[in-house]
């Protein structure tokens, strides 16, 4: 491989956007436009020969991309996707359920001070919580608990292996029972 072709390959590989011929030219002021075009041609032919990637020219410039026939396997294998983290709201709701299960929506909302239905639905869709029973009282509210999927993610065998709350700086105390105002 020609040294200029090698440089163009490194530049296209490391760039976060397609590079135009003018941008590529900044790599080496000694080389002419024609030489860059030739290098791009060499690279394109090189990849065309059975490689997993190819050199394409799109509106914004040149780019090395994955060949479409491999895209499926890569997407399916999840390997290039960063694992997702839960949102803070979801984490807080999950923490409350983990420590207070079985617990109903009203109690979660009481503790967090905001509506919980959306978060509960998405935690349930992700297989982290499940309705476990119906509680007492008006409308027999659904009570939630954590699932085995939750334990697997944390590498625990049992929810009792969660750190005990008295080891934390503050305790997650149940909300004070509503008091009737005297006045």
């Amino acid at each position, binding site marked *: 491989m020609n040294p200029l072709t090698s440089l163009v390959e*490194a530049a296209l*590989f490391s760039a976060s956007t397609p590079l135009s011929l003018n941008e590529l030219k900044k790599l080496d002021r000694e080389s002419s436009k024609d030489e860059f075009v030739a290098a791009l041609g060499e690279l394109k032919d090189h990849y065309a020969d059975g490689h997993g990637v190819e050199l394409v020219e799109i509106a914004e410039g040149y780019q090395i991309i994955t060949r479409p026939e491999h895209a499926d396997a890569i997407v399916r294998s999840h390997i290039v996707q960063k694992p*997702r983290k839960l949102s803070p709201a979801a*984490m807080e709701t999950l923490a409350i359920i*983990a420590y207070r299960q079985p617990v109903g929506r009203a109690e979660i909302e009481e503790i967090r001070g905001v509506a919980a239905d959306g978060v509960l639905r998405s935690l349930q869709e992700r297989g982290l919580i499940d309705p476990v029973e119906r509680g007492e009282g008006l409308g027999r509210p659904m009570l939630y608990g954590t699932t085995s999927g939750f334990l697997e993610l944390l590498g625990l065998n049992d929810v009792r292996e969660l750190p005990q709350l008295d080891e934390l700086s503050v305790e997650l105390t149940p909300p004070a029972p*509503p008091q009737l105002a005297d006045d």
Partner: protein
Amino acid sequence: MIAPQTADQGNTFVVALDQFEGPLDLLLNLIRQQEIEITDIPIARITDQFLLAIDSLGLNQAADYLEMAALLLRIKIQMLLPRPIDDADWEDPRAELVRRLLEYEQIKEVVVWIGARAEHHSDRFARGWAPPEPELPPQPLTLDIAGVLKAVEDVIAAIPQPVLHRVVVRPLDIEGARNRINHLLEGSGTTTFREIIETEPTVAFVISTLLVLLEMAREGFVSLAQSEPFGVFEISRESAN
């Protein structure tokens, strides 16, 4: 009796005004600059130089540096105490400080190695362009205990002041209830309360249905009947109208 040493401030030593990484760094710097044998530090002299240095560098307010100054002064006093004749039992009061200085110096050497290595590797670039994230399937989820504990602490921090009562306005769906009743009456002309409210009614819908039925009965559109106490609540269209 050993005469207390006076600070030989006439000694020239240069303290670079660079930021030191901490009291150990400054101390090590003083020692290395004067090519002092680290295992036999002239503690009185070094203490005075340290105090002078933190004063001139404006570090004499920083707790970390003051703590070191206090430690140096304590060692200095211990060194001045008369030693037992039998030296075998004497423990050098500088020993722990020497150990810490050596340990710190070792870290500094590792830092040089890491810095060079990172600099060397910073010439190698990874793939820059990230393909757009596909819509599906959902990405794997990560979760760890530390995250859960952090969330618990966030919850505790965010617990609001106790609320005595909260009135939630739930709109009644009068129109919907009337449509549903009319729809059910279209066929045979009869229906039941249970059928109207279905299996999982909301409180608002039950109340709406009840209000609509009472209103329709008052207007003479339907008649309400119950064949026995606590029996099925039957609704039938008044054919006369």
